[in-house]
């Protein structure tokens, strides 16, 4: 028996309507992809192909213009993330779908370990246990211990990225979205991240990740989806790919 996808994105498109400028900005066009438990689907393609837009669409930070995103919940219920009730999306974000973005937005008065532990605390894990687990994963990601009790506000790009990853991986969601998770990490830390992502795969987490580094795609991806910029916008980005996204 073949494994069933946890998420099936069908013909996803997103066009931004900028009212003030009276402009339409196409971002993603007709994207198809699937994510499977315990597997990683890599999203590749040139800048401007709408890769991040797809992830934000799945997380519902962006409202899709068209298409379906069929997600199978823990209870086995099939839900279209494009149209699901907002309360259900909030619940799924808390319990089942995680997102590691390229940027870390935290309050300057929140310590790094608190930032990492927060998703667990919100899930109902005791504060002490959540902090213990946070410290464990921060250690695994080579973040120096002297930084754990201070806010990540003044951290370097690579340090912030590790905090972001620690938080996303620790929550152990059923579906994890990763937007260039290792973009500003050194080779040694990247190896650690590869190891942690593979460990998380073993637990059954499905992942969709954006990579620019083909070496990482080789090491981590089980499936690869290549996106091309929406028709009519290719020239904006001097892209030489004209391939249509294939599942």
């Amino acid at each position, binding site marked *: 028996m073949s494994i069933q996808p946890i998420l099936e994105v069908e013909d996803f498109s997103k066009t*931004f*309507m*900028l*009212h*003030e400028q009276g402009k339409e900005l196409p971002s993603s066009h007709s994207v198809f992809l699937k994510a499977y438990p315990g597997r990683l689907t890599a999203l590749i393609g040139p800048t401007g192909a709408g890769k991040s837009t797809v992830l*934000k669409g799945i997380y*519902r*930070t*962006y*409202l899709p213009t068209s298409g379906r995103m069929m997600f199978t919940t823990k209870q086995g219920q099939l839900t279209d993330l494009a149209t699901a009730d*907002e*309360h259900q*999306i*909030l*619940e799924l974000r*808390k319990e089942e779908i995680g997102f590691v973005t390229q940027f870390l937005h935290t*309050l300057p*008065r929140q310590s790094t370990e608190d930032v990492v532990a927060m998703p667990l*605390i*919100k899930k109902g894990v005791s504060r002490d246990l959540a902090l213990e687990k946070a410290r464990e994963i921060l250690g695994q990601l080579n973040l120096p211990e002297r930084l754990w009790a201070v806010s990540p506000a003044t951290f370097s790009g690579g340090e912030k990225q590790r905090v972001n990853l620690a938080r996303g991986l620790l929550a152990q969601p059923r579906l994890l979205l990763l937007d260039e998770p290792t973009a500003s990490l050194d080779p040694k830390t990247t190896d650690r991240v590869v190891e942690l992502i593979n460990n998380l795969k073993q637990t059954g987490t499905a992942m969709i990740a954006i990579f620019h580094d083909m070496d990482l795609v080789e090491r981590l991806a089980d499936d690869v989806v290549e996106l091309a910029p929406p028709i009519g916008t290719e020239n904006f980005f001097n892209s030489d790919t004209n391939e249509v996204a294939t599942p």
Partner: protein
Amino acid sequence: MSNEKVLEVRNLSKVYGKGCAKCFESTGPEHNTNICPHCGSIVAAHDISFDLYKGEILGIMGESGSGKSTAVKNLFFDEMPTSGQATFFDDGKQYDLFSLNAQQKRHLRNHRFGMVYQNPVLGLNFNVSAGGNIAERLLMSNLTNYSEIRERAIELLHRTEVLTERMDEMPKNFSGGMQQRVQIAKALATNPPLLFLDEVTTGLDLSVQAAILDLIMEIQRENKTAMIAVTHDLGVIRLLAGRTIVMKYGRIIETGLTDQILEDPQDAYTQRLVASAL
């Protein structure tokens, strides 16, 4: 958040003035006014509908005069709506808010709802001490034992970081931020499942704002209190609210997940509002 509904509001409208048959069709964002050109009445809110769940903070955002406070004032019985329904779900019971009698309304206000106003003068009794303000609210509920009341007041002031040494002082001696903390302590006195926050940090120093917002988030996490936060401040919305309603000229023009409203606003007005953030 759980899936327990705390509040259901349907088609709430509030008109100041005598009103006429053309009020609603001649006001709103498409007419750029909330003043009826036929009778001069003000349509402060029209056709407001939303749901609120346990542990959720719903943001209501809009400029001055958009009607965002009106909705909250009606739900807290400070005013009566012109039309519409609201149902409050509490402990397996349902209350049709706008058909309750005065005593039932008073009961909900005193026991089950909390309100924090922008202006502490509205939420606090300035003729009694900070501790007395909290005691007042506890007396209206079932607590009557003096030492128990005092103990609970100390606990609440401690929680909201008001120096308990100052609990016998009058609120007028306090700074704005401290008055706001006393107001929050008072609102929380009866552990209400529903809390209304009307521009609670507007006009306070940034450091004081941060502390008050942290306190509100902590309360949400620990007590699973459902809250409606009315504000014109995008930062407050971003920090507190999971979902956000955008209002203009008394109407809801957009509603969605807060990150979606801020990153992918659909309406031209919301796009302008978000673009003007500092």
